């Protein structure tokens, strides 16, 4: 259908966005008999927002469920969430998302999603997370197929530029496709268009000019256009508007959409220096999955938002390979040259580190207590001298995963206006995740929020109309 034909019709439910949450909403609404229009800003090959980069779904289960082993109860799940958010969550919404995740998994399977046992290198998640066969893009493809079969209509490369509200009631959306614009009316709308991390100007305004040096791990199409439009119209927000979730990734990654392959797991076995060749934080503070997320911030605070992780040949095979081969040299001076670091300073740093390394047994998979002596900052585990050439170096940069600012919703996913809930506007996914995930991140939880709230939003929107 052309934009003109789309605009000539009145839609029961319009969904802004084309990722996991949007598709769950569209499928639920269509199954209730609604005529559904999905408006995806990305072109077809990039459809699916950040969902196309995901790979797992964190799921409560009271006993073995599909590929999930053992059990993972509501309280344990909620405790895990409390630990990462440090209490910055809405307990009611969080517990609801957790409880509903259990019935969501069979629903996903019934709508074309296939799961596989935990991927190699992710055994620590095999009880808590179900992995998508083929990853997030396979999930997105399956949902598009299911939605198409239900008669859902899609517009690609089309931006929702404005949501028309009359008081607390949604009436229509303005769409922009290439140079063409149109106003399309609907009886209900589900906002599932993600955060704003793709808009570097906004990021720079929120975080500071350093944000221009950040890499964006996911889609460039999450520019927060709908989020901004709704906030400008007085809807209530949640989440810290200045914060984003960032991890340290390979500094050579593309500006956008580098995804999973740009992650680097070498930090605990390395020394990390800034561009002046100086260490700045304890690389061995904890096992990597638990420290993965803080390094984004640490690197962001260094000059030019860049750091360098240095290992020797002993550690080469201790971590998952990255997509880019490391810089390699036979001497530390040579490596400094290849990485563009001051050679004398780097040698001093490495020598001081080596001199502070104790004797003792090195255990890469557990906290081995092998800590430096008299070094500041210390390295409190896996402190093994960097001596055996060849030496390897990786550049690190902050990679933004998502932003926290979002729309406030209630337990029916309804968006909250300045004074009361909007009558026919729902939100799901990253655009409202800040309600539950105030800070930090829990692997697989973004997909839980998207799926649970997407389904609720779709059902609620359809029941409102039909």
């Amino acid at each position: 259908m052309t934009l003109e034909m789309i605009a000539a019709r009145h839609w029961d439910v319009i969904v802004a966005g084309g990722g996991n949450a949007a598709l769950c909403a569209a499928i639920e609404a269509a199954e209730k008999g609604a005529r559904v229009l999905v408006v995806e800003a990305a072109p077809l090959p990039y459809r699916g927002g950040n969902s196309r980069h995901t790979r797992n779904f964190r799921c409560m289960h009271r006993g073995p469920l599909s590929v999930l082993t053992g059990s993972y109860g509501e309280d344990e799940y909620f405790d895990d969430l409390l630990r990462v958010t440090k209490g910055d969550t809405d307990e009611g919404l969080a517990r609801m998302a957790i409880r509903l995740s259990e019935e969501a998994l069979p629903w996903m399977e019934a709508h074309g999603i296939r799961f596989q046992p935990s991927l190699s290198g992710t055994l620590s998640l095999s009880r808590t997370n179900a992995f998508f066969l083929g990853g997030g893009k396979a999930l997105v493809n399956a949902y598009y197929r299911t939605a198409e079969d239900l008669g859902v209509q899609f517009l690609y490369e089309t931006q929702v530029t404005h949501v028309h509200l009359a008081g607390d009631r949604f009436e229509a959306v303005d769409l922009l496709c290439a140079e063409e614009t149109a106003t399309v009316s609907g009886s209900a709308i589900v906002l599932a268009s993600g955060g704003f991390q793709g808009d570097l100007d906004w990021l720079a305004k929120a975080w500071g000019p350093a944000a221009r040096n950040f890499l964006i791990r996911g889609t460039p199409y999450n520019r927060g256009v709908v989020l901004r439009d709704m906030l400008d119209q007085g809807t209530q927000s949640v989440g810290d508007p200045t914060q984003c979730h960032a991890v340290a990734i390979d500094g050579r990654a593309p500006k956008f959409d580098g995804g999973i392959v740009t992650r680097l797991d070498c930090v605990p076995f390395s020394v990390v220096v800034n561009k002046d060749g100086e260490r700045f934080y304890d690389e061995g503070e904890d096992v990597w999955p638990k420290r993965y997320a803080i390094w984004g911030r640490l690197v962001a605070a260094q000059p030019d938002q860049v750091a360098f992780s240095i290992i020797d040949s002993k550690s080469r095979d201790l971590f998952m390979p990255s997509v880019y081969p490391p810089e390699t040299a036979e001497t530390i001076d040579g490596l400094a040259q290849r990485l563009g670091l001051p050679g004398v300073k780097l040698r001093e740093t490495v020598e001081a580190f080596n001199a502070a390394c104790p004797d003792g047994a090195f255990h890469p998979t557990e906290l081995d207590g092998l800590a430096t002596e008299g070094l500041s900052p210390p390295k409190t585990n896996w402190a093994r001298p960097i001596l055996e050439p060849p030496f390897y170096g990786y550049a690190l940069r902050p990679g933004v995963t998502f932003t926290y600012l979002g729309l406030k919703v209630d337990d029916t996913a309804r968006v909250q206006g300045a004074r009361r809930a909007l009558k026919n506007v729902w939100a799901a996914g990253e655009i409202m995740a800040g309600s539950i995930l105030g800070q930090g991140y829990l692997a697989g939880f973004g997909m839980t929020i998207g799926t649970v709230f997407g389904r609720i939003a779709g059902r609620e929107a359809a029941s409102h109309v039909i």
Partner: protein
Amino acid sequence: MSFETPALTEAARQVQICNACRYCEGYCSVFPAMFRERTFASGDLTQLANLCHNCRGCYYACQYTEPHEFALNLPAALAEARRESWERFAWPGALSRLFQRSGVAVAAALVLGVVLLFAAIRAVPDTGDGFYAYMSHALMVAIFAPAFLAPLVVIGVGLRRYWAEVGGQRVRWSDLRDAGRSAATMRNLSGGQGQGCNFEDEDRFTNTRRYLHQATIWGFLLCFASTSSGTVLHYGFGLEAPYGPLSLPKLFGVPGGVLLTVGAFGLAWLKTKADPALGAAHLWGGETAFVLLLGLTGATGLALYAATGTSAVPALLAIHLGAVLALFLTTPYSKMAHGFYRFAALVRDAQIARRTGTAD
């Protein structure tokens, strides 16, 4: 690391990216095999390339396909490396370049085969029964024994070269059993969970290709069993053709012919719906011609049986035997070779899985 050819260099580039991602682990044997390694030599890539069944699941699931700058298209990269490996292993390689790539060359081989058989029938009239009324058994053997055995010798040489390049070890019965099971069930076209592959309708999973391939290979094997049983009856028991409808050659041959015909023409039809850019694009013609030749072999065999006692027999006999001749003679150089190398790759994969304890 440097590689001997551009296809291997490109395969290595893509495999490194896959190895850092691993989302596709559950689709087929290629990924577990890949994830056992950190670095890849030419032999490793050749093994992965021949293990790949081109089910395309990984392509449609991939977040790094074009227009992404990583430009992943693993099915095509491995198909190119595979094509190159067969040309490298075949002797003489020039023939491989001809029959793999060119539908016209396969068609020409067919015409040549048919003409040859017509000429043979005309030149040497005989007075036997059934087919042998048109062409003596001795003449058939004189043509087909070498036409069957010579290509097998050439393929054997190629397999030895393959085995050396991928670092294969002494084959155990258990390796053959594991490989045989994978081949018999086409496990690597199952999508990992029985949903099938992505082929004729982009990212939608279906088992159409898997089942058509099953029909083709089982049909081919039944036809082969039919001919073999005829040979045994002829030499071992002095029972000469024509055989009755309840004889072994017919009991194998008729269902075999039906399966082969349906399977092969079905695969050719499916090929017209699939995206050629996810395979070795230049091979499209050669591959399609090969699968049509297979179908023609089955169909003409059935037609010949149906025409028993009519005046159409000599012409059909020439066409059928001509097709068989073309199929045999081009075996080491056409898509037919894939069956041999694919099986070798499955055997090698079983060996590696056994050694590393990562049988999947």
